[in-house]
């Protein structure tokens, strides 16, 4: 071959040909030589100042991942996050509710005084505004506390240690160790949790993580859990330890969610998604000092405002819908009463009631509005001014609507297990591009929620308790 006949294409073709003849080991040499060269450069230009930082990290890691202390410390930290949230959120919630309902009352009477039609006043102030007010006062305080505290743990570098501690369980369930990280993201928002499963390379394990992310209660569901924990659990304890007991019960619910995640992953990897655990490597970054500004920014702007904004977007139409249902009559009965009566038998069978199921139907776009919707249905036309403390809510639920401990427990279970919100379902579709997996991701939790609640309700009713 003369030099004149060598064209770029010929070179490419020849290299392609030679490439096919190479066995796989050339990669090993490539990586080894890259590392060798990098090590040479680093040795020439990077100076190390002793190993103090590494020793310190190592000492912390020895505790946080130790054989006996690793898991208890993890539970304690999780419990502490909830405890701080419950302790701190109560009073601001009441203050916000008082303020909002004062505005509602004043604005409604002003509307009446200028002669606005009754339905306009009702729709705008007792419907849309009331929905928004409930969502903001029930959600904003817990979120504004939970997100920054959780972000501190994240920023410190603690989450990879959690994944490290729990990986064995996930391996046994046929899942990926990084699923623990995607679950941690799910605490904030399940849609974000589903998106974060991109860190898992293996498609099978990624699907497992996507389908089970819903079993981590997201921030939209925490207010429900916290409210129930405060009303039903904390009330049974002396005030000094009430918040601790409430936090412990929320931790228990979260642990139950972890059990469901593992159980469902296990079952799926032995049926629909059968296969072996793929290779797993996890880098454990060094601990770092949390940056206050970054934490405030991520937790308040990126997370709190984002989640709250989404909740408000769905709360406004939901508030309007509830008002219309409660004020439109067909045959002398309001539509709300009709739908509640329709759902009542199903609700009762699974230890809940028609109002709760109606709230869940209305709250499909966003779980955040379950509690507000429920309260608006229960309270009907009552003035909100009177109902702002947890004791008053308890009074209404237990005294007037026949709630029992079973209702509370089943509502906690239902809230933990039921179908993901519309945003999450949409995200599942975006991530999987498959109608079938999306349907499974939505219906499997719903079915499970009904089954579990049915089982507890029937068990409690059959047993002489």
């Amino acid at each position, binding site marked *: 071959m003369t030099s004149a006949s060598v064209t770029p294409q010929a070179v490419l073709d020849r290299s392609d040909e030679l490439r096919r003849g190479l066995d796989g080991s050339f990669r090993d040499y490539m990586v080894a030589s890259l590392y060798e060269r990098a090590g040479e450069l680093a040795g020439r230009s990077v100076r190390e100042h002793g190993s103090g930082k590494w020793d310190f*990290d190592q000492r912390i890691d020895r505790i946080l991942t130790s054989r006996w202390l690793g898991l208890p410390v993890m539970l304690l930290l999780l419990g502490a996050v909830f405890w701080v949230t419950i302790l701190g959120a109560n009073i601001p919630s009441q203050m916000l509710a008082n303020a909002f309902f004062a505005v509602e009352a004043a604005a409604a009477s002003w509307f009446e005084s200028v002669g606005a039609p009754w339905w306009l006043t009702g729709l705008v102030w007792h419907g849309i505004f009331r929905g928004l007010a409930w969502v903001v006062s029930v959600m904003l305080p817990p979120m504004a506390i939970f997100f920054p505290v959780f972000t501190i743990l994240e920023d410190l570098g603690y989450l990879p240690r959690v994944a490290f501690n729990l990986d064995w369980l996930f391996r046994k369930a046929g899942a990926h160790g990084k699923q623990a990280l995607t679950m941690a993201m799910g605490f904030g928002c399940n849609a974000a949790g589903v998106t974060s499963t991109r860190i898992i390379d293996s498609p099978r394990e990624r699907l497992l993580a996507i389908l089970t992310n819903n079993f981590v209660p997201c921030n939209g569901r925490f207010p429900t859990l916290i409210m129930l924990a405060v009303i039903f659990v904390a009330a049974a304890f002396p005030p000094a330890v009430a918040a601790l007991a409430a936090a412990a019960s929320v931790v228990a619910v979260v642990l139950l969610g972890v059990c469901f995640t593992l159980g469902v992953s296990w079952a799926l990897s032995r049926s629909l998604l059968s296969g072996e655990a793929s290779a797993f490597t996890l880098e454990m970054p060094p601990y770092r000092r949390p940056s206050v500004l970054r934490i405030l920014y991520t937790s308040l702007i990126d997370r709190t405002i984002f989640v709250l904004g989404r909740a408000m977007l769905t709360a406004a139409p939901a508030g309007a819908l509830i008002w219309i249902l409660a004020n439109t009559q067909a045959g002398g009965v309001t539509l709300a009463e009709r739908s509640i009566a329709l759902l009542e038998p199903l609700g009762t069978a699974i230890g809940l009631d028609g109002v709760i199921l109606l709230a869940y139907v209305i709250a499909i776009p966003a779980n955040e509005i379950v509690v507000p919707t429920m309260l608006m249905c229960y309270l009907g036309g009552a003035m909100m001014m009177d109902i702002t403390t947890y004791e008053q809510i308890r009074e209404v639920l237990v005294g007037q609507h026949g709630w029992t401990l079973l209702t509370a427990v089943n509502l906690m279970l239902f809230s933990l297990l039921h179908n993901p919100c519309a945003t999450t379902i949409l995200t599942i579709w975006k991530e999987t591009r498959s109608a079938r997996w999306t349907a499974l991701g939505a219906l499997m939790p719903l079915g499970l929620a009904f089954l579990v609640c049915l089982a507890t309700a029937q068990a409690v009713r059959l047993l002489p308790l």
Partner: protein
Amino acid sequence: MSALGLGMAAALLAALVAAPKFGLVARWKRHRAYRAKSRSEDALKHILAWQHRSKLATLESLAGTTGLRPAAVLRVVAGLQTAGWVESGAGGIALTASGERRALQVVRAHRLWERHLSDDANMPMGKLHQAAERAEHSLSREEVARLDAHLGHPQHDPHGDPIPRPDGTISALEAVSLNEWPVGRPALIAHLEDEPQAVFRRILLANLRPMQVVNVAESEPNHLVIETDGGRHRIERSVAANIHVREVRPQDALPSERTRLADLAQGASGEVAGLSPDCQGLSRRRLLDLGLTPGTQVEVALDNTFGDPRAFRVRGTTVALRRQQAEQVLIRPIRSPDGAEAAP
């Protein structure tokens, strides 16, 4: 009103049956086409396999492997003849040149798919064959080419069989059966035959893998005793016939003074000697990318509640590996946990 309802029901039914893509008719046609394709491809593979053993396939042998009725076998062979892929003569059925290329394409799809399942999906050896038997018929030629590039143009499937090249040529397997190997000379496993399954399961039970070094310790009329780094195994000669070995070349040899990263005690450290040869594809790349290249120092850093995974200190970072991954890193021990240096 009821007429309208009936009309709508009839329209719905018609759509269900005759819709161009999802209708029952279309589905049935697709199913038929797939079945015909997989039958004729299975027949091509069978004829190729017999040709490799210098025999001609017959209608009876075809019926035996495919489990089809004689009439169906005749139809399949007639189809292959029309396509110009086979010629039937007095002694049996032979592949034409184009038929052999076609058959090798199917084999290529099969072996690449096995490589993919093993490297990317971590599927255990015993399950690969079944899964690839299904996939080989539905992969288009472009998909096979993409898979080949994605896997980095591998030359052997996970059992050590050579993968046919895109032009339909294949390199011969240079190996002999373990039965013919002399006692006392180290041999490298080049290939494990995955059919019949019962024999293959027996091979997997002894934990034998391609690229592993074995030593025949005893040779008896009915069985062999072999030694590997996993221990001593007694292997029947009928099983040994399905294990093919070749000479150990200098580049295959791994240092003898070694252990596995998974077996290092807490606080112990060592130097990476290399990665286990049966660790390929994605998992090999991942381990290399983490810096576990030969000569790198590794120290056991963290244990956890369940003892698995464990974290290791590599090149100034802490990396957690499951036991399965840590078993694939071969180590020369340097320091025991109490700080004593290992003997050189």
